[in-house]
């Protein structure tokens, strides 16, 4: 079975002894703790950043600079009473929070946060698992994330949560397509599904790697589409119609209290961190970056610390962008949200995948790359123009469809 688990050198010998088991267990525990602590710090950092942007102070009482505020909130929620509405479906109501948080954590398992390192004398990748079908795993897990939201709203047995969860499901399903096509834009170039291979294709050689090796520039359109779709998938502003408190009381989690509410809250912010990590892996080279030049390449600082540092820096930069957007953009209207997803993102993403595939074929067949690029982009623009003209404008919509 070892070949299934990974291309990780840890399993190459085919023999899984106690020490290998221990290495895997340690990696799982560390990843879990890392994710929880980073959620705690992200919520604190988000509140501080937004407070700065709005000229407020933000949390400043619990611990130095208010850094323990999230921990205090979590402890408070843990000791609160958990109520279940009388009309609720009790089993599904209890199950929903866990269905929400499990995919968020499982998705993080395939993210490479470092290169190849040596733990207890075993060579291994610094990621929980390197599945050969890694990119498919991202799609599968983000598909499973819908269940928690949808079942929570239904199982609550009251109107507002149900409305919130129907909204959420519609939004998640609509943006799933654009999200997948954004990832596909990279996969066409990378030619592999394994996250470790995608990252090692974007390795750091010199400063030119930033524009030539990392996929954010060669796949710029998928990068933008991925960021928009991932924001919608995680229900973050400006796409947070799911919990529009003016309209829905609180959304799908209205009836939840105590630790179950905390788990939903945790899952939501964990998803943001995981999606930033996925974007870092696919588009920003994951852990690749310049090492410390004055030390040898095999030095522990260069194999352990620097990749993790670069990975963390890129994730924090992306998280800052989400907070920035959160602080500056108003919530979208529902019909605009659907129009953006279905009429623009999906079309642009499909056309980009076709163009990228044409370029790949041109590379393999030794065609003139520039002519191919020109023809591919020309046909794509033509196809998009026809599609755009085919969409009825709001003032042209016939009365019977209103």
């Amino acid at each position, binding site marked *: *079975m070892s*070949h*299934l688990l990974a291309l990780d050198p840890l399993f190459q010998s085919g023999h899984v002894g106690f020490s290998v088991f221990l290495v895997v267990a340690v990696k799982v525990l560390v990843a879990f703790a890392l994710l929880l602590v980073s959620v705690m710090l992200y919520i604190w950092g988000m509140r501080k950043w937004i407070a700065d942007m709005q000229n407020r102070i933000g949390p400043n009482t619990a611990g130095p600079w208010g850094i323990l505020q999230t921990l205090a909130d979590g402890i408070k929620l843990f000791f609160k009473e958990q109520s279940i509405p009388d*009309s609720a*479906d009790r089993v*599904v109501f209890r199950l929903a929070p866990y269905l929400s948080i499990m995919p968020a954590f499982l998705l993080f398992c395939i993210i490479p946060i470092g290169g190849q390192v040596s733990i207890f004398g075993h060579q291994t990748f610094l990621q929980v698992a390197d*599945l*050969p*079908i890694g990119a*498919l*795993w991202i*799609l*599968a897990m983000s*598909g*499973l994330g*819908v*269940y928690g939201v*949808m*079942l929570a*709203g*239904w199982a609550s*047995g009251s109107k507002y949560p*149900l409305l919130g*969860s*129907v909204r959420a*499901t*519609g939004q998640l*399903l609509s943006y*799933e397509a654009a999200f997948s096509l954004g990832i596909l834009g990279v996969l066409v170039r990378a030619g592999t*599904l394994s996250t470790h291979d995608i990252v090692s294709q974007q390795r750091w050689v010199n400063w030119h790697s930033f524009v030539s090796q990392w996929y954010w520039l060669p796949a710029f359109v998928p990068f933008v589409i991925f960021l928009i779709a991932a924001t919608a998938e995680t229900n973050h502003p400006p796409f947070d119609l799911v919990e529009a408190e003016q309209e829905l009381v609180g959304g799908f989690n209205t009836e939840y209290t105590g630790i179950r509410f905390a788990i939903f809250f945790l899952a939501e912010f964990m998803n943001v961190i995981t999606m930033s990590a996925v974007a870092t892996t696919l588009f920003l080279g994951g852990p690749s970056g310049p090492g410390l030049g004055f030390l040898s390449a095999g030095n522990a600082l260069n194999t352990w610390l620097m990749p993790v540092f670069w990975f963390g820096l890129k994730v924090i930069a992306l998280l800052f962008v989400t907070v920035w957007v959160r602080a500056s953009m108003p919530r979208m209207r529902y019909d605009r949200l659907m129009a953006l997803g279905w009429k623009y993102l999906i079309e642009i993403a499909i056309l980009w995948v076709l163009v990228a595939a044409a370029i790949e074929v041109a590379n393999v067949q030794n065609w003139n790359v520039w002519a191919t690029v020109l023809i591919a982009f020309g046909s794509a623009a033509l196809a998009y123009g026809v599609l755009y003209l085919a969409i009825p404008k709001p003032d042209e919509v016939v009365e*019977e469809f209103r």
Partner: protein
Amino acid sequence: MIAQNVAFGILAAAMVVAALGVVRTNNVVHAALYLVVVLAGGAAQFILLGQEFVAWVQVLVYIGAVIVLFLFGIMLTRAPMHPDESLDNDLKWPAAVTALFLAGVLGSLLIDAFHRTKIDIRQPIRTAAVTNAVFRTYIIPFEVVGVLLLAALVGAVVLARKD
């Protein structure tokens, strides 16, 4: 191989129990959730055979899209909270006979087709091999299935529009 056989037995038992749950329950949403367990069990069986690509496509397409659309449709239309007695009827025995007959036909068909063939699960089929098979060897059946699905989609639109 013993570990695989034990895992197969446990998964198969869980799938059978969940499949009975699908037809036994009076709550539509619970039926859909039991169906999720059955399909997840199927995906796990594919992993036991070393076919990880098929397994995760099963999760992605059936659990992540088809059942989600079922549930979405249920919630958009009625969102029933309580068991619905009309989901049950008196045709239990004919249904059981039909199910056994179908199991016999499919089982004998599979045994007839594959009874000497052994899958070497130490050499799992990589994604590249699957895509080569789909897009080179079986490209015409693949395209035909695509057209069939499109026809089904158009047919559904025609049936659903009332004008």
